[in-house]
Every structure is written in structure tokens, then in C-alpha cells.
């Protein structure tokens, strides 16, 4: 069930998780990027927790928009505009269609990411986490295993977008940090009961 309350819970759980996994995410990024993914998201997470604690929301749209703006303005790097665009896109979609379900919302989020970053499936980015999750939510078959499998699959991919693409074949054998952080997003989504398939 999608509600202001459980999206709020979701985002708090996601933020906690990002802060907890900060070092791990940066380590993943050290292997194939520039080692800042955990620190970038931790800045976003800290700001988001504050934002949510300080505000009451009347509509889901307002809440999603604020989440997007915090991500855009606090994370930086590649992941900031991407996570930011995802939530701003969701906010727009929820405004256009108040009856939109979670699948529709996440689809809009994925669309926002792909419009911004131009990545398609198989390029070893967070998109490779989002696509299978969105599909599973549509089919009402999302489980933690689906989420974990998707991130695990990035290990064997060769990066052709983002900083990891400079490694060419050497990017193979490492998990994508952005896919990993997105896996936290979706796991906490289940935990918070936003997905109750």
C-alpha cells in the first residue's frame, strides 16, 4: 500500500541503510569508480532524514518531490541527478495520476533515470537493478531474492556507462555500486510495507 506514511518510513529505512553501508558502497566504488558512492549517498541520506523529520506532507507528490530535491541537491556526482530524477519523475507521475500504483510509480522513476543517464539494460548501472525490480513489481512477484539476484548479475557485466566504463573488461568481476545502493532502496521498500505484494 502506497501512503505518505509508509513512503516516509521507507525513506527513513533507506537512509539508515545508506548511512550504515556508507563504507561498503564506497569500497565497491573504489574498485571500479572513484570511491565516493557511499559518501555521496550518505550526504543525501543525512539531509533526507532531517528533511523528513522537519516536515509534514499533505500529498504524496509533495513528499516525492522533496525527496527528489534533497537527492539532487545533496548527493552530487552521477548518482545524485539519477536518484533525484527518479523521485522527481515519480512526483510528476503521481501528480498527473493520483490513482497511480507502485508499479506505475517505479516505472516513472526508472524512466527518469534513463532519460537523465541514457543507460539501457546491461550497461552495469543502477538501471540493471531497477528494470528487474520494476518488472517484478508489475507482476507482483518481487522478493528480496529478485533484488539480490539483480545486483549479483551486475558482477559479470562490462560497464559501458559511467566512470566504470573506463575499465573496459576490467570492470567485469565487480558489483556495480549504484545497483547495490538501489538494492537497498528496494529492500527497504519491502520492509516498510510499501510493497506488500
Amino acid at each position, binding site marked *: 500500500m502506497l501512503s505518505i506514511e509508509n513512503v516516509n518510513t521507507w525513506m527513513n529505512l533507506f537512509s539508515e541503510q545508506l548511512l550504515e553501508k556508507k563504507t561498503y558502497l564506497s569500497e565497491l566504488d573504489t574498485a571500479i569508480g572513484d*570511491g565516493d558512492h557511499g*559518501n555521496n549517498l550518505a550526504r543525501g541520506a543525512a539531509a533526507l532524514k532531517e528533511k523528513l523529520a522537519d516536515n509534514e506532507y499533505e500529498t504524496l507528490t509533495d513528499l516525492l518531490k522533496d525527496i527528489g530535491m534533497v537527492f539532487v541537491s545533496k548527493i552530487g*556526482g*552521477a548518482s545524485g*541527478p539519477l536518484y533525484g530524477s527518479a523521485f522527481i519523475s515519480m512526483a510528476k507521475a503521481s501528480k498527473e495520476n493520483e490513482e497511480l500504483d507502485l508499479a506505475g510509480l517505479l516505472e516513472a522513476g526508472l524512466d527518469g533515470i534513463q532519460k537523465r543517464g541514457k543507460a539501457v539494460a546491461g550497461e552495469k548501472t543502477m538501471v540493471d537493478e531497477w528494470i528487474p525490480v520494476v518488472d517484478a513489481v508489475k507482476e507482483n512477484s518481487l522478493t528480496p531474492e529478485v533484488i539480490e539476484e539483480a545486483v549479483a548479475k551486475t558482477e559479470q557485466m562490462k560497464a*559501458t*556507462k*559511467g566512470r566504470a566504463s573506463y575499465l573496459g573488461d*576490467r570492470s567485469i568481476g565487480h558489483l556495480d555500486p549504484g545497483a547495490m545502493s538501489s538494492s537497498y532502496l528496494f529492500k527497504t521498500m519491502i520492509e516498510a510495507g510499501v510493497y506488500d505484494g
Partner: protein
Amino acid sequence: MKKIINEPSAVVDEMIKGMVFAYDGLIERLPETNVIHRTHSHNGKVGLVSGGGSGHEPSHAGFVGKGMLSAAVCGEVFTSPTPDQILEAIKVSDEGNGVFMIVKNYSGDIMNFEMAKDLADMEDISVDFVVVDDDIAVEDSTYTAGKRGIAGTVLVHKILGAAAEEGASLTEIKTLADKLVPAIKSIGVALTPATNPEVGKPGFDIGDDEIEFGVGIHGEPGYRREKLQPSKDLAAELVHQLKKEFQWSADEEYALLINGMGATPLMEQFVFTNDVHQLLAQDELALSFKKVGDYMTSIDMAGLSVTLVKLEDPKWLAYLNAPVTTISW
């Protein structure tokens, strides 16, 4: 990690404070942002904005001032700044005739600067930009994020800055930039990795006797790892790569920038400069502009890069030589 810092997460803020204190006649910090802008009087010139992750000092704030940048946006270390910050830089730089942005070719930078442009559009500020991708270490293919922007970016600041100072319009600057950027090529070599203070350990591993050709300014991988070798041989390899790209012939006119990565002393930079000179002199290039020093660093990386600009237009040389008032040009 052995560094003169306090809280790693406060490095950018404290660095900006130090910079603004030290050069208070020249630059100012826009309150509550990480934007540094010049103090000299506004007079209807096109504004020039650059920026990116911090860790490349003196880039970009060191080039803010009369004749170069109007403002620089300082992201977190090695992390693109966010669109709201870039928007503030655009606003403070706008003197009524639009703002031109110089963006280095990294996914993060491009997305954030593009978003900032969208925001500026909504505020009716004309914004255009160029993406600098001078690093020939990376092949420009659909399988990578494309060539990276490195030290050549500083020469773009200088040349566009002089054009803006001369009163060029936004369209003229865009035309100039689009012609200039493809004429700039750079390539580097690293002896040691940089340590991002927030990460706390070196960005890559490299043996005590190893070097890496083509490393990026955030420690992105290069094209080949070899044993440490004399400066002459490093120069030969880097010049060879540049020659392959430019396919130059005798008497062609170039500008040369030898850029230190942060921990390589001037002593080594000048020894290397001498070796590069020998090679370029053999090929009888006309080097009408030369500069050596730390311009686009990678925190405390040891290494350097060579940039050449084919001076296709005599104006470019005049622009390179035009006087500026900045901290570091």
C-alpha cells in the same frame, strides 16, 4: 592517510574558507554555497562558469577573476557539484548577456550541469555550455562515457575568458568553444594514486617501481602499466600518443601545458619539460605558448600530464597571452 586536514567531510568547506580569506580582494564566496565568484565589477560581459568535484586545486577557483572565470562551483572531493549550486553560480555570473559553462566530460558533471541549465532556463537566463574531453588516453567509443576532461580545460577557461572579457557574445563564445575543444589534446602519467580524504586510502594500488600511463584525474585507469622509467622515456611515450592523434607536421603552431598532478615537484616538471621540448623541437613544431606547473591536480597524486593545443586561429594565442587577475594563472 597523512594529511593536513580536520574532519575529512569538512575539507571542501574549510578549503573554500581558507581560499576566500587569503584572496579576499579577488574572490568571494556566495553565502551558504560552495560557489566562488570574482569581485571585479560587472559590466555586461558574458558570464563564464566552471567547476566540478574538488581535489583539482587550483582548478577551478584559482582561475576565477578578471579575464577568466566569473565563478567556480566546488563539488565535494571528486564529486560533481549539484544543480542548485551550479544555478547559483550561473545567477551570480549573469550580467544580462547570458552565461557560458565549461564542463568536463564526466557523467556526473554533465547531468548536474544540464539540470542546472534547465533550472536557469526557467529563470530566463540564457545558458550554453561546452564539454571538454581532451584526454586521449580513453578512446571515444560507445563503450565508454567518452574521453575525459583534464588539464586542457584550464586553457579553455583562459581562451574563452579572454574572449568574454573582450565582449564576445554567448553565441560567439559557443562557436569559439566548439572549434577550440577538438584542437586540445592531453595525456598523463601517474607515479602514485591520490587519496581522497573522505575515502581515507589511495584510489588504486601501484607498485613502488610502477607507473601508469593515461590515468585520469580521479584515478581512473590508464591504458598501460609499466616499470618506472627515465623522464625522457615518459616524455617519448606521451608525445608519441599526442603525435598519433594530431598527426602534426613541421612548423605547425601549438600551445603547450605541462601540468603537475599535485605531489610532483616543479623540479621534476621542468626536467620533464626539457625532455618534451627536445622531442617537439625534433619535429619542428612552433611552440608559441608554454606553461608549466600545477593547474589541474588530482589531490596528492604524483604524476603529470602534457596538453597541446593546435593554434588554428591566431586569436587563440592572443587570448592565451591576454592579462588576467586570478590566483593561479
